[in-house]
């Protein structure tokens, strides 16, 4: 398996892997698991004022999966309720120069992100509707 420099860098440092920093706001999480596909991703974020102010991931999977989860966590920071998802599986694949057979796993990352965004939107909606 060949890994792009970005995959190598993300795998070596695993940025945003682990726990959220403490802080105000609500914690939302999104998780997707497809063990048979080789990926399980959990994203957590802190939502404050309709904006994700921190994000962390945990993942089980190949280096591309871990790298994609790290990018997703990074891009989620700053996301505002009501705006489109900051990234999707195809974009992640392009960023990581992932081979085609890895797309299934990157979709698991996308699913986890969507789950988190939906959760965040659901939490936030009544507030902003007022």
């Amino acid at each position: 398996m060949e890994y792009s420099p970005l995959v190598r860098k993300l795998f070596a440092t695993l940025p945003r892997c682990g726990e959220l920093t403490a802080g105000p706001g609500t914690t939302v999480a999104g998780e997707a698991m497809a063990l048979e596909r080789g990926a399980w991703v959990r994203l957590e974020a802190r939502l404050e004022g309709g904006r994700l102010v921190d994000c962390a991931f945990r993942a089980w999977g190949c280096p591309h999966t871990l790298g994609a989860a790290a990018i997703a966590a990074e891009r989620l920071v700053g996301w505002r309720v009501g705006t489109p998802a900051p990234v999707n599986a195809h974009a992640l694949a392009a960023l990581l120069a992932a081979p085609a057979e890895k797309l299934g796993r990157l979709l698991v990352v996308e699913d986890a992100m969507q789950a988190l965004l939906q959760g965040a939107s659901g939490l936030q909606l009544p507030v902003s509707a007022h």
Partner: protein
Amino acid sequence: MQRPTDQPIFLDHAASAPLEPRVAARMCECLRDPALQANPSSAHGPGRAAATIVAQARAQVAALIGAEPAAIVFTAGATESVNLAVLGTARAAPVGHRHVVTARTEHRAGLESCRELEREGYEITWLRPGSCGAVSPEQVGAALRPDTALVSLLHANNEIGVLQDIAAIAALCNERGVPLHADAAQSVGRIPVDVNALGVALLSFCAHKLGGPKGVGALYVRRRPRPALRPLVFGGGQEAGLRSGTLATHQLAGFGLACELAAQELPGEEPRVRALRERLWAGLEPAAPVWRNGAVEPSAPGILNVCFPGIEGESLLFALEGRLAAASGSACSSASAEPSYVLTAIGRSELAAQASLRLSLGRGTTAAEVDAAAVLLVAAVLRLRRAAPPTASERIA
């Protein structure tokens, strides 16, 4: 052979062991000697000089397994030996003998040659070993039929190292007049192997697992009674017609010397490597949970197959990249993401199989390497476990 410091710790001796430096020296001598360049089948002086080297190699190879030199058929490797044994015996079997017994945990050379026999209309009994990894003599005995043409089994399993009780199985087969083939690529040169004590009709092995060169192997064919064999390759009639093609003098010289050296060093090496393997296992304890795949003993000394539940195999290998060379599954399939069929056949889940690593030690392996490897592995496993969702170690097992 000095390992340069930029080279990873090599724990993949089961895939291929480094060439013994004295073997390399001997081969280079052969390659460069103007008097040894002729075809060993040529009748002239230079041909006979090459033939003398071949004869010496045959004696050395035969001696390692307690065989007569005339019982050795040289091949291009264990794969060819196994195919010649399996396809050759089945195709030469008396009319109506179209049943073969083997196990699901065979090396792919045995597995795929039996699959080929299936395509040719043979019926295969695929034995499934217990979680220890070995099929029992009772299983084999129960599978034998009047039309059984061959039993073919690994001596030492190439992924988990477990030994099958070939001697007991041979006793059953010999009683019934069924030839038994053992694939001993992972045992010859690593533990004492004596074809007469084992009682096998056919035994396959190759040079590159025991310090010799890649691209050369041998099939032992018992002389009395001699199993009938149909060649795979036809031509000049070398190797008593069983394997045509110009003999590669330098390859055989290397194979022969490697066998002689392995025989000399085996009494010391076997316990040394076995102890290092256990030291490596002990060193992995801080990575608990960590499981051992297959029975601990009886086994070839150098293979440790471990499962790190909660860990994804590709990420583990990548975490070790450049620092530790090991295999997930066997060499030929480790490039693919398929879980090991050996581990699933002995009852591991697909996820546990993917979370497993074969660490194989050999002649060059030192205690320092083993300790360093354990440290690397523990660090990588703990880091990946921390990165994984909290219940991964339970779910992925």
